């Protein structure tokens, strides 16, 4: 650090102050200047649209036509719409099942990767691939894997392992389609969970496990009493982010089933899109999107709870 300081000393030969330099030494000016681009972008393209979305949900706007205020009529008609209610239950089920799957498998993978294994860095790198590749593109690969006639899973089960006699209609029946979507979502979510949890695992000091071993703790006790509590802070943040993004998922379902068969696999996001853009009922689509907000707020509160607890556990001040 000394070297850097000395280098800095040589760099700053004080020149007569130009007006620009003086302006930049004015803190208020500097703060305004620095915050301006971000504040501008987020206020115009994030905060304003949030309010506009609320307003649109109470109008009968269509594409190319601003629409009139109609109060809560959109919400009333949605509450009588069985497809909407199915999209709500689908979204909740999709989120719950996929999240549980992702976290169980991701935690397992993280614990596997936390061992001494050859080429660990390489394995960690390729394991993250499903998360890097554009969702829609890997979803198209899943679509092909789920093809009714040429599904490779069916081929494996029927022609290679002889476990079944007929090909599975993955996307043709509602429950099969829902299950297939959840599997694809879990597949895509495992890397994120595994890599973040692995980072958490690596911060746990091995001496804790050694101490527990000396005290005669078995594997489960070590997992339950050391790994889980110390992993909790990072786990709760990853969990909330994952829940949030799974709940508002759009790409995977749009690419694989587009809500079909017969609108039985719509999530709230895909239904909002279908009503708003191809169906051109902007008001109704906005109402569906607004209906997602209460769920998202609950998830966000959980996130702050997690973040807060993390700071407290580490004993770090609220700097």
């Amino acid at each position: 650090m000394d070297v850097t300081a000395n280098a800095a000393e040589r760099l700053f030969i004080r020149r007569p102050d130009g007006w620009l330099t003086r302006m930049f030494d004015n803190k208020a000016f500097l703060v305004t200047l620095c915050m301006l681009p971000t504040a501008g972008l987020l206020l115009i393209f994030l905060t304003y649209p949030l309010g506009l979305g609320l307003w649109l949900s109470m109008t009968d706007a269509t594409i190319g036509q601003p629409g009139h205020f109609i109060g809560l009529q959109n919400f009333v008609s949605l509450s009588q719409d069985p497809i909407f209610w199915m999209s709500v239950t689908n979204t909740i089920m999709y989120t719950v099942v996929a999240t549980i799957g992702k976290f169980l498998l991701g935690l397992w993978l993280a614990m596997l990767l936390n061992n001494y294994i050859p080429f660990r860095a390489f394995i960690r790198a390729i394991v993250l691939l499903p998360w890097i590749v554009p969702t829609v593109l890997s979803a198209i690969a899943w679509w092909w894997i789920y093809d009714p006639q040429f599904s490779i899973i069916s081929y494996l089960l029927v022609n290679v392992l002889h476990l079944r006699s007929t090909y599975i209609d993955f996307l043709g029946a509602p429950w099969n389609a829902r299950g297939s979507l959840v599997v694809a979502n879990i597949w895509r979510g495992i890397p994120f969970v595994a890599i973040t949890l692995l980072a958490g695992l690596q911060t746990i000091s091995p001496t804790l496990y050694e101490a527990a071993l000396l005290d005669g703790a078995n594997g489960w006790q070590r997992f339950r009493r050391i790994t889980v509590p110390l992993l909790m802070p990072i786990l709760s943040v990853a969990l909330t982010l994952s829940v949030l993004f799974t709940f508002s998922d759009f790409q995977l379902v749009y690419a694989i089933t587009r809500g079909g068969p017969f609108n039985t696999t719509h999530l709230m996001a895909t239904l909002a899109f279908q009503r708003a853009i191809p169906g051109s009922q902007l008001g109704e689509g906005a109402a569906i999107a607004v209906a997602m907000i209460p769920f998202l707020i609950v998830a966000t509160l959980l996130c702050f709870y997690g973040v807060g607890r993390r700071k407290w556990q580490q004993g770090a001040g609220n700097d």
Partner: protein
Amino acid sequence: MTDTITDAAEPGPLARAVQDEPERPSWDSQAKRVVTLYIPLALFVIVLLFPFYWMTITALKPDYEMYDYAKFSPFWVHSPTLANIDKLLFHTNYPRWLLVTMSVAVASTFLSVAASVLAAYAIERLRFKGAQHVGLAIYLAYLVPPTILFIPLATMIFQFGLFNNPISLVLTYPTFLVPFCTWLLIGYFKSIPYELEECALIDGASRLQILKRITLPLAVPGLISAGIFAFTLSWNEFIYALAFIQSTDRKTVPVAILTELVTGDVYQWGSLMAGSLLGSVPVALIYSFFVEYYVSSLTGAVKE
């Protein structure tokens, strides 16, 4: 004694694998290691990578092979062909879509990183009154998913006259890029000792000089992380591109593959897979060069 027998009987990769472990395990625990560690790990790797393998070999198969599992084992390519890729590159707008995606991703990344680095610097380093709350607000902004914003944004884009114009994407992608990058960079600035700046202040440097000569150069790894991450996120973005762009020659790769290559009831799986493969290559390439940055920004973003 067991150790020497193990070594003599099994000098394979397993013996080498455990070399850096403090104690040499007995044969028993090596067998256990295979069952509890290597087999599950291999299964994970196979399942996580299989869709990409399947994508690749389908893209390389000729049609007669692709739909005839009885004659040709589907797990391998018997007579590889570049016909699908050729068709995609020279008989569709694919190069055009790649160009659009690339320009949108580069422009929005540049815009977002520039805005974020300033915001992160102000929040973490200038420590103005209320900086905490601004940081919190930006974090909250990250939690707003694009799926609840795209409808009002579509009406705004329409009013701005930017509908069907890729500039609309450059302007809207920062809604999810800026919060993420700012959050990442705040964490990064935190890791740079404040004393360095104080030293420079005492030596008579102006704030502008400090930012230019000390903070930014030290934050370069953070900037790279934010940049490649923002690039990947923009490359992957789907819903805005789907909602705001209509003409064929202005679509981004993910949208174009799904809307332009899927025609009628007969799916051209060969070209669909070739399109997905080629669309994944740019991000996969960048990823392969910057793996460590991805891992650190992914975990850093969650930790902060």
